């Protein structure tokens, strides 16, 4: 966030990529994309490309880490070296560790961990191509992958960011807006209750601007939820024989 007021990010009511202030980038979602993982999802969101693989519940080693009352949820968010402009050295950096933590906490609020004592559920989020908002894409995809794995959850988790750019509050920041805007506000919620399970902010917002950004992010999350729901429904078509069982299998 450099808050560079000189860079024109909004012109004639449109953002650099032609979007309106309340418009999300194009999003495509798919589940069951990996063979080995228990559950998986792949999301393209603007120029972001994110793949998530889930394993579990599975045995947790070493034993002293086991919790006899519930499963542990481990989340690893990782940027591929080629996912960003300047190559990122492999291995977790401090930013990735923080994102892993807040993502894990967001998911823990819905996953029914108490049903699987002494085990671990592993969520691996790979950012293959990054263009701002990767933690929201990752969390959204992780929620899909957990559902794909059949892990019981109270609800999905849907994420979306908002921010401020050239003094204007907008939804779903892209890279230039994240780099040169005045605020970035990633958010995630449990759609059924509308309760917030991830909220971070960095930048500069007045109280009113925050309320405006909150609403935009909230509505954005609900739009993401609709798409998540549709993706899961579509993935179950064959399960119930929609389209017949004999199509060239």
């Amino acid at each position, binding site marked *: 966030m450099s808050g560079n007021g000189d860079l024109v990010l909004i012109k004639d009511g449109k953002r650099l990529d032609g979007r309106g202030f309340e418009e999300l980038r194009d999003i495509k979602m798919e589940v069951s994309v*990996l*063979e*080995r*993982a228990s559950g*998986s999802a792949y999301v393209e969101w603007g*120029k972001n*490309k994110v*793949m*998530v*693989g*889930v*394993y579990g519940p*599975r045995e947790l080693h070493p034993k002293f880490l086991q919790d006899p009352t519930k499963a542990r949820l481990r989340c*690893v968010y*990782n940027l*591929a*070296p*080629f*996912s*960003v*402009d*300047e*190559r990122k050295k*492999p*291995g977790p950096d401090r930013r990735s560790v923080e994102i892993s933590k807040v993502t894990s906490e967001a998911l823990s609020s819905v996953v029914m961990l108490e049903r699987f004592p002494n085990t671990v559920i*592993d969520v*691996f989020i*790979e950012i*293959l*191509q*990054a*263009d701002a908002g990767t933690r929201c894409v990752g969390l959204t995809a992780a929620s899909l992958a957990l559902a794909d794995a059949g892990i019981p959850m109270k609800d999905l988790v849907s994420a979306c960011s908002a921010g401020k750019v050239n003094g204007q509050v907008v939804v779903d920041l892209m890279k230039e807006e994240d780099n040169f805007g005045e605020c970035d506000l990633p958010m995630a919620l449990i759609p059924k209750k509308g309760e917030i399970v991830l909220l971070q902010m960095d930048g500069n917002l007045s109280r009113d601007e925050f309320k405006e950004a909150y609403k935009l992010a909230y509505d954005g999350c609900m739009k993401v939820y609709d798409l998540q729901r549709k993706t899961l429904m579509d993935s179950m078509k064959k399960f119930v024989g929609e389209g017949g069982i004999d199509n060239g299998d």
Partner: protein
Amino acid sequence: MEIEGYLKKDYITNLVNESKREDGRKFDEHRKIIIDNGYVKDKAPGSCFVQLGKTKVLAGISIAVGEPFPDRPNDGVMSTSTEFRPMASPRFESGPPNEDSIEVARVIDRGIREAGAIDLKKLLIEDNLVWIVFIDIHVLDHDGNLIDAGGIASMSALLNTRLPKYEDGKIIYGEYSGKLPIARVPIPCTTAKIGKALLVDPSLNEEYAMDARLTVSTTENINAMQKGGTGSFNEEEIMACVDAAFEKGNKIRKMLKDAD
């Protein structure tokens, strides 16, 4: 050996004794190869997503500038890394590369480097400044033969890599000044030995059953070899692997050129 290994080993071996493979392939046949170039082209100057059967690997090429090695002051620099991402297999853990991951990276690297695939002499920018090429192989789904999948993905990605613009002492990301100069296209080919049989492109189950494997990376010559596993090969078997590598190498090389 993990449970899947025990469950499959005898079955695979019995099939091989009947001259059959689990997926119906001939012993000298590769699985279906799908090549998707430019998979992450909005950021990486070069990339390729390869599916070799169900194995899925994404190779990304990053370009930087820096100092050459002191003993080769006019040559660009290349470096190859492989990450076995934990989503790719229940056995892969988060953490630094283990010996398997490092072996895959180094074998692929040797194939590319010894063939002179990247024309490193053409990567000199100015005195004491050269292009540095990073090959990063991300294994996303493991169903066997990561060396061949990674090697094919790397070469295809390199063939489609553009050099960034370099102006006023820095790289202009997103703008490009030409293609990475490629002189030759080495392709690795791995053959597994199960009993007395030689099987090209082992699947994961076949890897559980194999006694040894031999990877041969070729252009018009042999540029790299690696024997793996605790079993052994005799000379005749090795020559058979070499011949298969030349044949398959040519076939796959043509596939890469056509996929461009």
